[in-house]
Protein backbone atom coordinates (compact mmCIF):
# COMPACT_ATOMS: atom_id res chain seq x y z
CA UNK A 1 0.00 0.00 0.00
CA UNK A 2 1.18 3.55 -0.73
CA UNK A 3 2.18 5.68 2.23
CA UNK A 4 -0.53 8.08 3.21
CA UNK A 5 1.89 10.93 2.41
CA UNK A 6 1.91 9.85 -1.25
CA UNK A 7 -1.86 10.09 -1.55
CA UNK A 8 -3.80 13.20 -2.45
CA UNK A 9 -6.57 14.67 -0.30
CA UNK A 10 -8.02 17.98 -1.53
CA UNK A 11 -8.92 20.66 1.02
CA UNK A 12 -12.17 21.71 -0.66
CA UNK A 13 -14.11 18.49 -0.02
CA UNK A 14 -15.19 16.49 3.02
CA UNK A 15 -14.73 12.82 3.80
CA UNK A 16 -16.77 10.02 5.42
CA UNK A 17 -15.51 7.23 7.69
CA UNK A 18 -16.12 4.84 4.82
CA UNK A 19 -13.74 6.74 2.51
CA UNK A 20 -16.31 8.48 0.33
CA UNK A 21 -15.99 12.21 -0.34
CA UNK A 22 -18.55 14.96 -1.01
CA UNK A 23 -18.05 18.33 -2.71
CA UNK A 24 -20.65 21.12 -2.77
CA UNK A 25 -21.80 22.14 -6.27
CA UNK A 26 -24.60 24.70 -6.09
CA UNK A 27 -27.48 23.04 -4.22
CA UNK A 28 -26.04 19.61 -4.90
CA UNK A 29 -23.16 17.47 -3.67
CA UNK A 30 -20.84 15.49 -5.91
CA UNK A 31 -19.80 12.14 -4.38
CA UNK A 32 -16.90 9.78 -5.05
CA UNK A 33 -14.31 7.67 -3.23
CA UNK A 34 -11.03 8.95 -1.84
CA UNK A 35 -7.53 8.40 -3.17
CA UNK A 36 -6.96 6.14 -0.15
CA UNK A 37 -10.00 4.02 -1.09
CA UNK A 38 -9.01 3.61 -4.74
CA UNK A 39 -5.44 2.72 -3.76
CA UNK A 40 -6.74 0.18 -1.25
CA UNK A 41 -8.88 -1.48 -3.91
CA UNK A 42 -6.38 -1.79 -6.73
CA UNK A 43 -7.40 -1.73 -10.40
CA UNK A 44 -11.14 -1.15 -10.65
CA UNK A 45 -12.85 -3.12 -13.41
CA UNK A 46 -16.51 -2.34 -12.77
CA UNK A 47 -18.53 0.38 -11.07
CA UNK A 48 -22.16 -0.20 -10.15
CA UNK A 49 -24.10 3.03 -9.56
CA UNK A 50 -27.66 3.74 -8.35
CA UNK A 51 -30.61 4.76 -10.52
CA UNK A 52 -31.28 8.49 -10.62
CA UNK A 53 -34.28 9.43 -8.53
CA UNK A 54 -33.39 6.97 -5.79
CA UNK A 55 -33.48 8.34 -2.25
CA UNK A 56 -30.57 7.37 -0.05
CA UNK A 57 -30.17 7.49 3.71
CA UNK A 58 -26.81 8.30 5.21
CA UNK A 59 -24.57 5.22 5.19
CA UNK A 60 -26.84 3.35 2.76
CA UNK A 61 -25.25 0.99 0.22
CA UNK A 62 -25.62 2.91 -3.09
CA UNK A 63 -23.51 0.74 -5.37
CA UNK A 64 -20.20 -1.04 -5.57
CA UNK A 65 -16.79 -1.06 -7.18
CA UNK A 66 -15.22 -4.32 -8.29
CA UNK A 67 -11.52 -5.06 -8.52
CA UNK A 68 -9.53 -8.33 -8.60
CA UNK A 69 -12.45 -10.62 -7.63
CA UNK A 70 -13.34 -8.20 -4.85
CA UNK A 71 -16.54 -6.22 -4.56
CA UNK A 72 -16.47 -3.19 -2.28
CA UNK A 73 -19.73 -1.64 -1.27
CA UNK A 74 -20.20 2.12 -1.60
CA UNK A 75 -21.95 3.92 1.25
CA UNK A 76 -23.70 7.26 0.91
CA UNK A 77 -21.85 10.00 2.85
CA UNK A 78 -25.03 12.11 2.92
CA UNK A 79 -28.76 11.44 2.83
CA UNK A 80 -30.56 12.70 -0.26
CA UNK A 81 -31.87 12.02 -3.74
CA UNK A 82 -29.63 10.80 -6.56
CA UNK A 83 -30.01 13.35 -9.37
CA UNK A 84 -27.15 12.26 -11.64
CA UNK A 85 -24.61 9.46 -11.97
CA UNK A 86 -21.35 9.37 -13.90
CA UNK A 87 -22.25 7.21 -16.90
CA UNK A 88 -18.67 7.41 -18.23
CA UNK A 89 -17.58 5.00 -15.50
CA UNK A 90 -19.47 2.24 -17.28
CA UNK A 91 -16.83 2.20 -20.04
CA UNK A 92 -13.96 3.74 -18.09
CA UNK A 93 -14.10 2.40 -14.53
CA UNK A 94 -10.32 2.96 -14.28
CA UNK A 95 -11.01 6.71 -14.00
CA UNK A 96 -11.84 6.04 -10.34
CA UNK A 97 -8.19 4.99 -9.92
CA UNK A 98 -6.62 7.71 -12.05
CA UNK A 99 -8.82 10.68 -11.10
CA UNK A 100 -10.73 9.85 -7.92
CA UNK A 101 -11.78 13.47 -7.37
CA UNK A 102 -12.46 14.51 -10.99
CA UNK A 103 -13.35 12.10 -13.81
CA UNK A 104 -13.96 9.35 -11.24
CA UNK A 105 -16.88 11.10 -9.51
CA UNK A 106 -19.83 8.74 -9.01
CA UNK A 107 -23.07 10.59 -8.35
CA UNK A 108 -24.64 13.92 -7.56
CA UNK A 109 -27.16 14.09 -4.77
CA UNK A 110 -29.70 16.65 -3.69
CA UNK A 111 -29.22 16.58 0.08
CA UNK A 112 -32.08 15.97 2.49
CA UNK A 113 -30.32 18.44 4.76
CA UNK A 114 -27.38 20.46 3.42
CA UNK A 115 -26.04 20.96 6.95
CA UNK A 116 -25.20 17.23 7.09
CA UNK A 117 -22.13 18.14 5.06
CA UNK A 118 -20.64 19.92 8.08
CA UNK A 119 -20.73 16.64 10.00
CA UNK A 120 -18.31 15.03 7.56
CA UNK A 121 -14.56 15.15 8.23
CA UNK A 122 -12.34 17.84 6.80
CA UNK A 123 -8.98 16.90 5.30
CA UNK A 124 -7.09 17.04 8.60
CA UNK A 125 -9.64 14.95 10.50
CA UNK A 126 -9.71 12.35 7.70
CA UNK A 127 -5.91 12.17 7.61
CA UNK A 128 -5.86 11.68 11.38
CA UNK A 129 -8.32 8.83 11.02
CA UNK A 130 -6.20 7.19 8.30
CA UNK A 131 -3.05 7.48 10.35
CA UNK A 132 -4.96 5.82 13.21
Amino acid at each position, binding site marked *: MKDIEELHFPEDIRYSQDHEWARPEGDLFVVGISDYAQDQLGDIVFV*ELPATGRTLTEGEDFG*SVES*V*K*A*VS*ELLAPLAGEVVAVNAELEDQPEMVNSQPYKGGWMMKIKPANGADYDQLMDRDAYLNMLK*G
Partner: protein
Amino acid sequence: MTAAYLLDLPRTDYSEALALQRAAVDARRSGRLDRDLVILLEHPPVFTLGRRGGRENLLISEAILQEKGIAIVPVERGGDITYHGPGQLVVYPLIDLTAARIKVVELVTAMETAMVRTAAQWGVSARGDTVHRGAWVGPRKLGSVGITVRRSVSFHGLALNVTTDRTPFTWINPCGIQSCEMTTLAREAGAAVSMETVRQQMVAHLGLLLDLTFERVSRDTLAPMVQEAA
Protein backbone atom coordinates in the same frame (compact mmCIF):
# COMPACT_ATOMS: atom_id res chain seq x y z
CA MET B 1 1.20 -10.90 15.05
CA THR B 2 -2.42 -10.00 15.75
CA ALA B 3 -4.77 -12.28 17.70
CA ALA B 4 -7.77 -13.52 15.70
CA TYR B 5 -10.57 -16.03 16.18
CA LEU B 6 -10.77 -19.27 14.22
CA LEU B 7 -14.13 -20.96 13.78
CA ASP B 8 -13.76 -24.48 12.39
CA LEU B 9 -17.23 -25.65 11.39
CA PRO B 10 -18.57 -28.96 10.15
CA ARG B 11 -20.52 -29.06 6.87
CA THR B 12 -22.78 -26.01 6.98
CA ASP B 13 -25.66 -24.90 4.78
CA TYR B 14 -24.65 -22.00 2.52
CA SER B 15 -27.43 -19.62 3.58
CA GLU B 16 -26.80 -20.32 7.25
CA ALA B 17 -23.09 -19.56 6.86
CA LEU B 18 -23.90 -16.42 4.85
CA ALA B 19 -26.15 -15.12 7.65
CA LEU B 20 -23.37 -15.81 10.15
CA GLN B 21 -20.84 -13.95 7.99
CA ARG B 22 -23.10 -10.93 7.53
CA ALA B 23 -23.81 -10.76 11.26
CA ALA B 24 -20.11 -11.09 12.08
CA VAL B 25 -19.18 -8.32 9.61
CA ASP B 26 -21.64 -5.96 11.33
CA ALA B 27 -20.29 -7.01 14.73
CA ARG B 28 -16.68 -6.52 13.63
CA ARG B 29 -17.45 -3.07 12.31
CA SER B 30 -19.28 -2.00 15.47
CA GLY B 31 -16.55 -3.46 17.69
CA ARG B 32 -18.80 -6.05 19.39
CA LEU B 33 -16.59 -8.63 17.70
CA ASP B 34 -13.21 -7.51 19.04
CA ARG B 35 -10.93 -9.49 16.70
CA ASP B 36 -10.76 -10.59 13.09
CA LEU B 37 -12.41 -13.96 12.43
CA VAL B 38 -11.54 -16.74 10.02
CA ILE B 39 -14.21 -19.36 9.32
CA LEU B 40 -13.40 -22.79 7.85
CA LEU B 41 -16.11 -25.08 6.55
CA GLU B 42 -17.56 -27.18 3.77
CA HIS B 43 -20.96 -26.60 2.17
CA PRO B 44 -23.56 -29.06 0.87
CA PRO B 45 -23.90 -28.74 -2.95
CA VAL B 46 -24.87 -25.18 -4.01
CA PHE B 47 -24.24 -22.75 -6.87
CA THR B 48 -23.62 -19.09 -6.06
CA LEU B 49 -23.73 -16.09 -8.38
CA GLY B 50 -21.45 -13.05 -7.95
CA ARG B 51 -22.72 -9.50 -7.71
CA ARG B 52 -22.51 -9.17 -11.47
CA GLY B 53 -24.56 -12.29 -11.96
CA GLY B 54 -23.32 -15.22 -13.99
CA ARG B 55 -26.59 -17.05 -14.70
CA GLU B 56 -25.58 -17.05 -18.38
CA ASN B 57 -22.67 -19.29 -17.39
CA LEU B 58 -25.02 -21.98 -16.10
CA LEU B 59 -25.08 -24.60 -18.84
CA ILE B 60 -27.98 -26.77 -17.66
CA SER B 61 -31.54 -25.78 -16.90
CA GLU B 62 -32.50 -24.56 -13.47
CA ALA B 63 -35.28 -27.17 -13.48
CA ILE B 64 -32.66 -29.93 -13.54
CA LEU B 65 -30.87 -28.34 -10.62
CA GLN B 66 -34.14 -28.13 -8.72
CA GLU B 67 -34.68 -31.85 -9.32
CA LYS B 68 -31.26 -32.51 -7.85
CA GLY B 69 -32.07 -30.27 -4.91
CA ILE B 70 -29.21 -27.86 -5.64
CA ALA B 71 -30.01 -24.19 -5.01
CA ILE B 72 -28.65 -21.13 -6.86
CA VAL B 73 -27.93 -18.33 -4.41
CA PRO B 74 -27.13 -14.78 -5.59
CA VAL B 75 -24.55 -13.19 -3.29
CA GLU B 76 -22.66 -9.91 -2.96
CA ARG B 77 -19.15 -11.23 -3.57
CA GLY B 78 -16.90 -10.45 -6.54
CA GLY B 79 -16.57 -12.92 -9.39
CA ASP B 80 -19.02 -15.00 -11.37
CA ILE B 81 -20.92 -18.28 -10.88
CA THR B 82 -19.27 -20.98 -8.81
CA TYR B 83 -20.01 -24.30 -7.16
CA HIS B 84 -19.50 -25.35 -3.56
CA GLY B 85 -19.88 -28.87 -2.30
CA PRO B 86 -18.53 -31.59 -0.03
CA GLY B 87 -14.76 -32.14 -0.29
CA GLN B 88 -14.13 -28.46 -0.97
CA LEU B 89 -12.47 -26.44 1.80
CA VAL B 90 -14.08 -23.02 2.09
CA VAL B 91 -12.39 -20.26 4.07
CA TYR B 92 -14.00 -16.96 4.96
CA PRO B 93 -11.55 -14.37 6.33
CA LEU B 94 -13.48 -11.56 8.06
CA ILE B 95 -10.75 -8.97 8.45
CA ASP B 96 -10.93 -5.28 9.25
CA LEU B 97 -8.69 -4.25 6.36
CA THR B 98 -8.25 -0.65 7.49
CA ALA B 99 -7.16 -1.71 11.00
CA ALA B 100 -4.90 -4.44 9.62
CA ARG B 101 -3.53 -2.09 6.91
CA ILE B 102 -4.05 -4.78 4.29
CA LYS B 103 -5.06 -3.84 0.74
CA VAL B 104 -7.90 -5.70 -0.93
CA VAL B 105 -5.52 -6.98 -3.61
CA GLU B 106 -3.09 -8.15 -0.91
CA LEU B 107 -5.81 -10.20 0.77
CA VAL B 108 -6.72 -11.82 -2.56
CA THR B 109 -3.05 -12.60 -3.23
CA ALA B 110 -2.59 -14.00 0.28
CA MET B 111 -5.53 -16.35 -0.23
CA GLU B 112 -4.05 -17.56 -3.53
CA THR B 113 -0.67 -18.07 -1.89
CA ALA B 114 -2.20 -20.02 1.01
CA MET B 115 -3.78 -22.40 -1.51
CA VAL B 116 -0.53 -22.71 -3.50
CA ARG B 117 1.51 -23.48 -0.36
CA THR B 118 -1.04 -26.00 0.87
CA ALA B 119 -0.96 -27.74 -2.52
CA ALA B 120 2.86 -27.81 -2.40
CA GLN B 121 2.68 -29.83 0.82
CA TRP B 122 0.97 -32.57 -1.20
CA GLY B 123 3.59 -32.38 -3.95
CA VAL B 124 1.32 -30.36 -6.25
CA SER B 125 2.84 -27.39 -8.03
CA ALA B 126 0.15 -24.70 -8.26
CA ARG B 127 0.39 -20.95 -8.93
CA GLY B 128 -1.68 -17.82 -8.52
CA ASP B 129 -2.67 -15.66 -11.49
CA THR B 130 -2.91 -11.89 -11.46
CA VAL B 131 -5.54 -11.83 -14.23
CA HIS B 132 -7.62 -14.98 -13.66
CA ARG B 133 -7.41 -14.96 -9.88
CA GLY B 134 -7.31 -18.31 -8.10
CA ALA B 135 -4.93 -21.26 -7.73
CA TRP B 136 -4.03 -23.06 -10.95
CA VAL B 137 -2.23 -26.29 -11.81
CA GLY B 138 -1.23 -25.81 -15.44
CA PRO B 139 -4.48 -24.82 -17.20
CA ARG B 140 -6.65 -26.44 -14.52
CA LYS B 141 -8.23 -24.49 -11.69
CA LEU B 142 -7.67 -25.88 -8.20
CA GLY B 143 -9.17 -23.09 -6.12
CA SER B 144 -11.20 -19.91 -6.41
CA VAL B 145 -11.29 -16.57 -4.64
CA GLY B 146 -14.00 -13.92 -4.38
CA ILE B 147 -14.48 -11.39 -1.60
CA THR B 148 -16.70 -8.52 -0.59
CA VAL B 149 -15.67 -5.51 1.46
CA ARG B 150 -18.37 -3.93 3.60
CA ARG B 151 -17.36 -0.93 5.71
CA SER B 152 -13.70 -2.00 5.50
CA VAL B 153 -14.43 -5.56 6.66
CA SER B 154 -13.83 -8.40 4.19
CA PHE B 155 -16.04 -11.48 3.87
CA HIS B 156 -16.60 -14.37 1.46
CA GLY B 157 -13.18 -15.82 0.61
CA LEU B 158 -11.61 -18.88 -0.99
CA ALA B 159 -12.69 -22.36 -2.06
CA LEU B 160 -10.04 -25.06 -2.48
CA ASN B 161 -11.06 -28.30 -4.17
CA VAL B 162 -9.62 -31.11 -2.10
CA THR B 163 -11.72 -34.16 -3.01
CA THR B 164 -14.69 -32.32 -4.57
CA ASP B 165 -16.90 -34.20 -7.06
CA ARG B 166 -16.04 -32.36 -10.28
CA THR B 167 -19.26 -33.23 -12.13
CA PRO B 168 -21.23 -30.11 -11.03
CA PHE B 169 -18.44 -27.90 -12.42
CA THR B 170 -19.18 -29.28 -15.87
CA TRP B 171 -22.65 -27.72 -15.58
CA ILE B 172 -21.18 -24.21 -15.52
CA ASN B 173 -18.44 -22.09 -17.08
CA PRO B 174 -16.66 -21.73 -13.76
CA CYS B 175 -15.48 -18.20 -13.04
CA GLY B 176 -17.11 -17.05 -16.26
CA ILE B 177 -14.20 -18.38 -18.32
CA GLN B 178 -15.14 -20.76 -21.10
CA SER B 179 -13.56 -24.20 -21.05
CA CYS B 180 -11.93 -23.67 -17.68
CA GLU B 181 -11.36 -27.16 -16.30
CA MET B 182 -11.60 -27.61 -12.55
CA THR B 183 -9.36 -30.02 -10.70
CA THR B 184 -8.87 -31.24 -7.14
CA LEU B 185 -5.89 -31.66 -4.85
CA ALA B 186 -6.46 -35.43 -4.63
CA ARG B 187 -6.54 -35.74 -8.42
CA GLU B 188 -3.37 -33.69 -8.92
CA ALA B 189 -1.55 -35.47 -6.08
CA GLY B 190 -2.68 -38.84 -7.39
CA ALA B 191 -3.19 -39.93 -3.82
CA ALA B 192 -5.66 -39.79 -0.96
CA VAL B 193 -5.72 -36.35 0.67
CA SER B 194 -6.98 -35.78 4.20
CA MET B 195 -9.34 -32.81 4.53
CA GLU B 196 -8.45 -32.55 8.21
CA THR B 197 -4.76 -32.18 7.38
CA VAL B 198 -5.53 -29.67 4.61
CA ARG B 199 -7.52 -27.60 7.11
CA GLN B 200 -4.55 -27.50 9.49
CA GLN B 201 -2.14 -26.59 6.70
CA MET B 202 -4.41 -23.86 5.40
CA VAL B 203 -4.75 -22.30 8.86
CA ALA B 204 -0.96 -22.30 9.33
CA HIS B 205 -0.35 -20.62 5.95
CA LEU B 206 -3.07 -18.01 6.42
CA GLY B 207 -1.72 -17.17 9.86
CA LEU B 208 1.75 -16.52 8.45
CA LEU B 209 0.54 -14.65 5.37
CA LEU B 210 -1.90 -12.41 7.23
CA ASP B 211 0.20 -12.10 10.38
CA LEU B 212 -2.51 -13.61 12.60
CA THR B 213 -2.35 -15.98 15.56
CA PHE B 214 -5.53 -17.96 15.98
CA GLU B 215 -7.60 -18.80 19.01
CA ARG B 216 -10.09 -21.55 18.23
CA VAL B 217 -13.61 -20.63 19.25
CA SER B 218 -17.03 -22.27 19.01
CA ARG B 219 -20.20 -20.71 17.66
CA ASP B 220 -21.45 -20.57 21.24
CA THR B 221 -18.43 -18.49 22.27
CA LEU B 222 -19.03 -16.10 19.38
CA ALA B 223 -22.79 -15.87 19.89
CA PRO B 224 -22.78 -13.05 22.49
CA MET B 225 -20.57 -10.94 20.18
CA VAL B 226 -22.31 -11.85 16.93
CA GLN B 227 -26.06 -11.38 17.04
CA GLU B 228 -27.52 -13.05 13.97
CA ALA B 229 -30.67 -11.58 12.47
CA ALA B 230 -33.68 -13.76 13.26
